[in-house]
């Protein structure tokens, strides 16, 4: 294949449609970071082991490094940049701040997306369910406990918010 050959990729990210020229070898992660300049999604391993690049594809948590850019047409992609609406953070984001659940911060966007996928499915997860949901996200700084506490607290906050509506 010619190294300069590009392909047109269409995708929908955080509610916006994009049409970009990409390398046919690009993954969704490269599409997001290099072509769309959305660098909130991180690369820690490039082969689906660490979970730092977790995004939602039609609501399902996936590793963006394992999806080819060319496969994303028709999928609704949500990244960490899509969670903060009108200056209001998602409860998971806010809880991580308050519970000391982010240290170096590199795994944080991926953890957040896994947690959001969980809370979308289950409004009151147990600690075991939370640990299972983020088991694909490796964190090397926190030891996980403050992250688990944060996600659990975010679930309660979300439940309270729903009850008030």
């Amino acid at each position, binding site marked *: 294949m010619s*190294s*300069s050959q590009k392909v047109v990729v269409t995708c929908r990210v955080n509610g916006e449609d994009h049409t970009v020229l990409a*390398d046919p*070898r690009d993954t969704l992660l490269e599409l997001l*970071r290099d072509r769309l*300049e959305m*660098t*909130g*999604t*991180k*690369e*820690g*391993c*490039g*082969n689906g*082991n*660490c979970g*730092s690049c977790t995004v939602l594809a039609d609501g399902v948590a996936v590793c963006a490094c394992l999806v080819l850019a060319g496969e994303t047409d028709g999928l609704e992609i949500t*990244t*960490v*940049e899509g*969670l*903060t609406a009108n200056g209001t*953070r998602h409860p998971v*984001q*806010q809880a*991580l*701040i*308050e*519970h*000391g659940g*982010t*240290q*170096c*911060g*590199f*795994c*944080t*966007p991926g953890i*957040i997306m896994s947690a959001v996928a969980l809370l979308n499915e289950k409004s009151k997860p147990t600690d075991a369910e*939370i*640990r*299972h949901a*983020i*088991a*694909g*996200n*490796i*964190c*090397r*700084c*926190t*030891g*996980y*406990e*403050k*992250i*688990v506490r944060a996600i659990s607290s975010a679930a309660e906050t979300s439940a309270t918010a729903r009850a008030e509506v």
Partner: protein
Amino acid sequence: MNDPGQIDWSQKNSVVGKPLPRVDAGERVEGTAKYPADMALPGMLHAKTLRSPHAHAKIKSIDTMKAAALAGVKAIVTSGDFHDVPVGATIPMGEAGYDMWMVSVINIARDKVFWVGQPVAVVAATDPHIAEAALALIDVEYEALPAVMSIDAAMAPGAPAIHKHVITTGLEPPAQVPSNVCSRSVIERGNADDAISSAAASAAIDTTIDTGHQGYIEPQAMLAQVDSNGFAMVWAATQGQHTTELMISRMLDRPQSRIKVVPVEIGGGFGGKISIHGEAACVLLSEMTGRPVKMVMSREEVFQGGSGPPAAARHRIEVAAEADGTLTAIKGLYRQDCGGLPGLPPSLMMQASAALYQAPNLHLEGYDVVTNKPRTEAYRGPGGIQAYFAMEQAMDSLCQKLDMDPVEFRKKNAAVTGSTMPIGTPFPSIGLTTILDAVSKHDCWTSPLGEGAFPRGRGFGLGYWRGTSMTSACHISISGDGRPMVTMGSADISGTRTTMAQVAAEQFELSIDDVLVTMGDTKSVGYSDGAAGSRLARTMAAAIVEASDKALAELRTRAGRLLQTEPQTLTYERGVFRAPGAAQGGASISLAEIMQATLTDGAILETGVSTKLPLGVEVAAHVADVEVDTDTGQVTVLRYTAFQDVGRALNPTAVEGQIEGSVVQGLGWALTESFDYGDDGRLRNASMLDFRMPTALDVPPVEAVIIETPVPDVPYGLRGVGEVPIVPVGGCVANAVARAIGARVPQMPMTPERVLKAVKGR
């Protein structure tokens, strides 16, 4: 406020000691925090590194013609493009300096390769895919040499000597011929052999510890841009911006006045991001092309020789006691595998391993050995977890033989303030006995272990780390609205901006939101050592106290002038200077009013430099409950409690975060993390799936118990925090396993296979 050690900090405790959220947490959770890999500049090129496929070989020739001809390739560098740094060259760091020859060899191989993954050439191209494709077009002719892959092989008589210039130091008579043993260190007191042979009880263990890894989630990444005047800007995820600048300068023989290093967010370091790993190559490539150059390592590169893992080791410890449990001797033989280049002599690690015990007879003998593995680098209390894996198992075996409670045994033999350290000097302030008292009263030690499907055990282990102080600098300017702005000369790898904002806010009696702390680049703030050795929060706090005092003194002078009052008669509280009788309607003036009136009279710009601050030695005691599946060898950690004396917790959430994270890293190495090198020197598990770091499902909640025994003559009495909580983990878990199955597992990690072998061999 000239003597910070004398201040009664309890009287003003509005910000320091509070569990405040990180000041930089918002950008982390929103994904806007910028790490080097996230940065881009117009016209930017992408660099990729060609790495050695051989563990030991001569480089006979390198032909880059075909690669250079590939469309999109803009420049290629090999060793000939770099300054030839001589053996023995160092840059300033701590007491001994940092080996600059080693740094150069880590960054580019010259004539020989010493491990698989050592850089041989670096390509810059318009696209990372093109740079990657170009690597395959570079022809390197190697002459393979015999590789030495273990401590035993390296120390065997007749082993091929990897380096011609390495001649063992510390031998009597002095060694004459090259060897793979870099140094021999001995610490001796009394006669350990006699004491052991005449003791009522003794115990020994021979341990083998595999190579691990720091496991930072962010692979090394960097960006360089050289302008048309030859001025190089480097954005780096580094533990020390000034160290990075020194290293680039020496590798390229380039004046430091032509380099600026900007520290950006770092995705974990733990000791592995002190050295540069490509920054100098990116500067060269940018200079050659006139375009910015970014390098982002892949995970495989990080593991397969592109970064420095911590040392593998073989340690043998033998200990002896009288019948009443009085320790009489510690004898240790320490061998550490420093990888492809000479490491630090093991004496600091040896001293640390025996430091918490008062033993009249000592014989500690250590060797550091080169092998054809990646050159090792620091990892959280370098060498500590390995040494304590051996020491604490030996001590626990001795307790079993004496039928003595492990905590009571430590109380009987604990080092105390003023007792003699292994190096022969008196111990500085140490809170070990306070910690031991806390353990023996805590539920984690007193509660029953409970029944499980498989055998359970409770283990105890200590850890010690000396830490360091070195030098830290900051400056503080007062902005036009009266708010203090702090610029640090060091990088923030663990939340330092937050804890230092707490210190600055405390000094000025302001809210944390009214101060700003930033990491300065190397051209905007004076020399500081890197964030390493558990030194930064302690020493930077001292620098901030000094600079704050100076700034407040100048503000007081200006306030006196504006209020037409003698400055020394003013009182200062929460951002306001008051003249005598202010409460009765007398004059007062705020920092904002002072700066509004005097900003154009001249900047307030004050510096603080901390050097040779007293050490804040770190002590930790851990308790672990485990259950061992005797059919599979799987170890499950049920409960983990970590006690640590931190002097004073600037921010309890941050301290807990350091302890909890450290323990989980330690559990990883204790149970699953191991680099598996083949005889050909190739790492066979260079991925995060196969190098098995703990997930949230693998570890219990870790309870951190913070104890505060302040260090005299140190602002806020701070001790180092970040390193020691990994030190006891291997030994503590091993002791729990041994008490569960009734047999010792002398290898780390204690994989199911090894545990099962110990179960079967009972």
